[in-house]
Structure formats: C-alpha cells, structure tokens
C-alpha cells in the first residue's frame, strides 16, 4: 500500500509534526516569558492577548504549553527509544536462544513487572537523584519488559517460518538473520506498542514530576502543568484543559502514525 492511500499515517504525521514544530519553536521563542509572573493576570481567562489564559501565577499558559510540549516530547521519546531498543534486543536474544537464557531473561522481566511501575521509578530516581536524564533512564528501564515480551513472541512466531529456516540452512550468521529476516517482519508490532508506550511515558513523567522528582519548577512539562492545575479546576478550568488537549492531540497523532504503520505491507 502506498503512503498516498494511507490517511491515518498522513494525518498522524501532520498532527504530530505540528506539535513537534510548536515544541521546537518553543525552545527558541515564546509569545511571553514562561516564568514572568503578574498578579493582575492571575487566572485570567483566555483572551486575544493570552489565547490559553493565565495560570495561578499569572503566567501565559500558551507559552508554557509550548515549552512543556518540548519537555514532554523529549522525555517520552527518549524513554521509549531507550526501552524499545534495549527491550527488543533482550527479547530477540531470549526468543532466539531459548533454554535457560530465555528463562533467566524472562523471569528478570517478571521481577521488574511485579513492582508497581511508579514505585520502581521512585526507587530509581531516589537512588540516581532527580533530573531530566535520570528520569529518562528510570522510566526507560520500566519500559524494557513490555518490549522484550513482544520481541520475544515475534521471534518465536517467525523462528519456525520457512524463510528463516532457509536462511539458517544457507548458513547466515545469527546477527544477519535477526536484522534481515526477523526485524523487517517484527517491527510493525513493536512500533505499534511503542505508540501505546509513548502514552504511558507521558503519564509516568507527569506522575514523577508531580512527586517532585521529575521536571523541577518553574520549568514546565505538560504533565506537570495538569497536576498543578488540578487544584484550580473550579476557578480556572482552562489551566488544565489546554495542556490536556495538547497531550490528547499528541497521543492521537502518535496513535494514528502507529495505525498507519501497521497498514504498510
């Protein structure tokens, strides 16, 4: 199927691209300062000057959404990339070799899965210290098991197929088989679960920021903004709504991309 006939992929790329563009612009320029406080604008509703309204310190929410989208993008994408690459390698290894190595790897996965994920992230962060890089590392480790599981089952499914068997017969190396036979057939499942994982990463980052271990104030991330806005839902609903919409649109865009990817043959 051609890209032209794949509306999910096109729309998904457009939506995600727009948010990404906004986030990148936000790194260099925002309509207002993201930290400038003004008591006269405390909880100012959306207007032409401040299209998303103002927060509890009178800061422009649109500017903070721009900055926050960047942070959220960075953390979620790096987390998923880390979890996906590591998880896939581990999963392929377990599935390909089988036997005791498989048992060891998968049981280690179960151990990580057995703990509530946020609790485990808390332990990592309190051990490593807070900060953006440590958050990415802590969350990334949490995402390894889900990818390892999928990669392993894909490996088990494909291992017995004829084209893989033929590759084994003509004496291809293990690495070559994995990269040229297995990966091209498995990446679709892995990428679609990456989209789901992206969503979870956004939420996990928000949770950690809320506990004071993620992004440190006054820096913004979408999750952190929503958590801060929770206390002011009655007085200033727009404070929660706009970062929330930004997350929804972002997740929708990524989900559409994943849907589109799965339709590529």
């Amino acid at each position: 199927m051609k890209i032209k006939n794949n509306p999910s992929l096109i729309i998904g790329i457009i939506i995600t691209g727009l948010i990404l563009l906004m986030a990148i612009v936000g790194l260099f320029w925002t309509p207002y300062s993201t930290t400038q406080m003004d008591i006269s604008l405390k909880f100012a509703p959306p207007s032409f000057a401040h299209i998303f309204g103002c927060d509890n310190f009178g800061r422009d929410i649109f500017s903070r959404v721009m900055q926050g989208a960047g942070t959220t993008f960075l953390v979620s994408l790096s987390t998923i990339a880390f979890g996906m690459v590591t998880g896939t390698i581990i999963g392929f290894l377990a599935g390909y070799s089988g036997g005791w190595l498989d048992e060891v790897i998968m049981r280690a996965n179960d151990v990580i899965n057995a703990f509530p994920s946020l609790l485990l992230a808390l332990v990592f962060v309190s051990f490593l210290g807070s900060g953006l890089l440590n958050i990415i590392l802590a969350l990334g480790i949490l995402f390894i098991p889900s990818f390892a599981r999928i990669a392993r089952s894909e490996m088990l499914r494909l291992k017995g197929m004829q084209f893989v068997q033929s590759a084994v017969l003509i004496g291809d190396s293990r690495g070559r088989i994995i990269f040229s036979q297995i990966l091209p057939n498995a990446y679709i499942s892995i990428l679609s679960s990456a989209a789901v994982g992206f969503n979870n990463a956004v939420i996990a980052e928000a949770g950690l920021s809320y506990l004071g271990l993620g992004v440190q104030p006054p820096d913004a991330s979408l999750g952190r903004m929503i958590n801060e806005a929770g206390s002011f839902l009655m007085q200033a609903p727009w404070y929660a709504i706009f970062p929330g919409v930004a997350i929804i649109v972002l997740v929708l865009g990524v989900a559409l991309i994943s849907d589109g990817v799965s339709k590529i043959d």
Partner: protein
Amino acid sequence: MKKIRIILCSLIALVTVGVLVACGGGDNPSGQGSGTSTDGKASNSVVVGISQELDSLDPHNAAYAGTREVLFNMFEGLVKATPTGDIEPAVASEYTVAEDAMSITFKLRDGIVFCDGTPVTVEDVKYSIDRYAGIQGEGSAFSDYKDTEIVDDKTVIINLVNPNTEFIFELTCAILPEANDANVNSNPIGTGPFKYDSYTPGDKLVVVKNENYWKPGQPYLDKVTFKVVADTDMAVMQLNSGTLDIYQYLTADQAMTVGNNFNILEGNVNYVQGMFLNNARAPFDNIKVRQAIYYAVDRDLINDMVFGGKSHVIGTNMIPGASKYYNADTEKTYTHDVEKAKQLLAEAGYPDGFTFTITVPNNYAPHESTAQIIVESLAEVGITAKINLVEFNTWHAEAYVDRNYDATITAVDGRLAPFTWFIKNVSTGNKNFTNYNNPKFDELYNKAISSIDPDEKVEYYKQLQQILADDAASIYVQDPSNLVAVNNQLEGYVFYPVSAQDMSVVKYK
C-alpha cells in the same frame, strides 16, 4: 414458568422495600443530597482530616507539630495552653511562681483522675516531668530544670538551676501515669478530654469521650476520628463527599472549591514561613548578600499570589500571635527595592549575581509556590536560583538535620514561651539549622531568658527580633493564613497560638 416469575417479582419487591426502609430509618436531616457526613450528628462524632502521619503517640516524644495538635486532646500538663496564648491550670488547680523565678509550687486539682479512673498522684507528676526532661536533654529549656520536690500528697515544687520566668510554659508537658510506663505507645493514658480508642498507622486515630474529665460538661462530642489525608486536593474532595467534617491548612484558592455546607474560618497557622539561608555557606555568610536578597524578595506578592493577601507578612522569626513580645517594626525593616538589592550585591562583590539551589520539601504546596515566586524575584537582580523539590523525610534528614543546603523554604514553629522562637538561632543550639552565629544575639538571648522583670523581658525579646531582621539571618516571609473548613452543623471551633486542634469545645448545633 409463570409461577417462577411471580416469585421473582415478589422477591425483588421485598428487597426493594427492605432497602428503602433501611435508608429511611432514623430521621437524618443532613442526608438530603448535601453530602455532609450522614451519621455524624446522630452518633455525635466528628472526622478531622490531618495532613501528616503521627510520628508518635507518646506525647513526650512527639516531634511533629501535626502530632502535637492531635495529642492536645488526649493529654494535659500541670497547666495547659488557652486560645489567647496564656496558660490555665489543668492537672494542678493552682500554682505560684517564686519571686526569684527559681521555683514553682503546684497544688494538684481535687479529685483529678486519669481517663482510666485512677487518681493522679504527686509521684506521677514527678515521674512525668523527669521523663520529659530526660527526653528533651541538654540544649533545651530543661537545662534549667533541677528537680521535682514532693511536699505532700497534693503539693509539688519544681526547682530550677537558673531563674527562668518562662519555665511555667514548659509545664504544659503531659502528665502520664507511672504505672503505664511500658505501654505509653500502645495504650496511651492521659488526663485530657478524650481518651485513646484505636490507632491504625497511616490511616486514623480514634479517640472517645473521657467520662472522667475534670471540666464539667466537656467534651461535647462522643467520638473524634483523626484521619490522615495524603494531600490537600484529596482533602477537598473528601470534604465535599462528606468523609471529613473538619480540615485545616487550606489556601484561599482551595477554600473556594469547598461546598457551601462548610463554614470557612480564618486564622493563622502560627508558623514563621520563609526562605531560610545557610549562614555558614558562601555567599550567604555575607550579610550584604542576605540583605540584598531580602530587598529583592517581594513578600507582599507572595502573600497576594499564594494566600490571597490573607497572610500576615513578617520580618523576623516570631509570629504576630505572640502579641506582647512581637516586634512589628521588623515588618518594615526591608521593602521591595530592586535598586537597593543590586547596589548591595555590587558592594558584596557579586555585581553579576550568583547561582544557588533552593531545597523545597514537597509536602505543603504553598512552599513550592513561594519558591517559584522567589526565583522569579531574584532573577530581576541577576541571581539565578534553582528549585530542588524533595520528599519531606529527605528534606528533614539532609537539610534540617545535616544542614546540607544553600537555602530552603520551610516553616518553623514555636510554643507559648517566647524563647522557643529564638532557640533555633542561638549559635550553640542543636537546632540551629541555619548556622546563624551572632555573639551579640546569644548574649541578649541569655539575658532575656533569665530576666525576671516582665517589661525588661519584653524589651529584650523585641531587640532579639530586630537583630535577626537587621542581620537578615533568613528571609522571613509570612505567618501563612490558615483557612479551616468546618461542617456548618458544628460550632465552637477555636484557634490556638500553638499547635492544637481543640475538639473538646466543638459541638453540634
């Protein structure tokens, strides 16, 4: 088939009627869609939300202010605090402070008994005060304590090493039965208006009416549950759903979201909230830097932003609630003046500012908001401050105990005796977490404590406050407003200038 259907129908009807009857049982005026706790009035009980887990049920070992405010209902000393910041006789019925302030004579109240019915003896009094003194240790007010002398079975004399007119305030420490020494934590017994019923760590403490309480008619309630609530947002939800009847420490913004079946009472939390500076660490060892920060920080803005202007802005380490000792002039020692701040920074050798970290405990949202506003104010004078949010226990261990921080946002409390507000600034004090060191302050502090002339004492304390302000020892910001949501069927809730939530005077209308 038809038969079965009939049987089924009648069964359903029966169950429905049964449920309706059960719901309608007992006339309950508050049950009508309001969401107030439905059985509170009928069972004469109240649920109070508290923001912190209790650190101990032993009143002598309880360190958190949040614990003391709860235990206030179960324990009393020879004397107890009143809402006006004075003391009244409790376990003792009368007392006389010797003229030289070297001893205090107490006469036990006639017929005073513990909540289990056993009489309070002079031996119990001696045991309790010795025990409390032992726990407080050196470097506390009890370093002035000599002994408790038993005169007869109604009279004791507390002897002191140095003259100390404020020692009487320390005798609000709980009187416990000596016979219960081994079970203080598992089955606490006191003389307070309520007695211990049950305790589930991390969840709730239940206390019931002490039928043997000495104040006639009190308490009015039969049962009070102190329920631990994880955070204020949760508390607001639980208030609105009817799980809680009383919750304090709401901010103005949160109070607006509480339903109209609650009255919002306004008081102060009686803490000195501010940005405390590590005076031993550069550049805060330089008085000009500290003063520059004080000029740069807009305290009124913090009050307006975070507390809707309802806090009391202060300029020293004491609360306005300490009325006669409080030095209101210190509020005006510094004004928000960016130019002056820049000039002082240049004089101190930091014309381009510097970078430091503010450590903020994450258990009280206004601290974090205060930190954000301070960061923004300091940016105006070229100082870069970074916020490091940490969990409360980490903060307590690293910042408060180990003194490993540049600056920290927190709140410190004191008790009735005025010296309690200043002991943290004495250079040798074991709780001097800001490492403040001014020999002049230490000297004046000792004079203030030992002074037996009331007017002279007031004067000394006012001078102490002025020294802290002039030195900009820390950036004292405010005594935050304390908005308390109280179920509107209740009346009698009062504020104390110490950590206390007195439930003995609360009753249903």
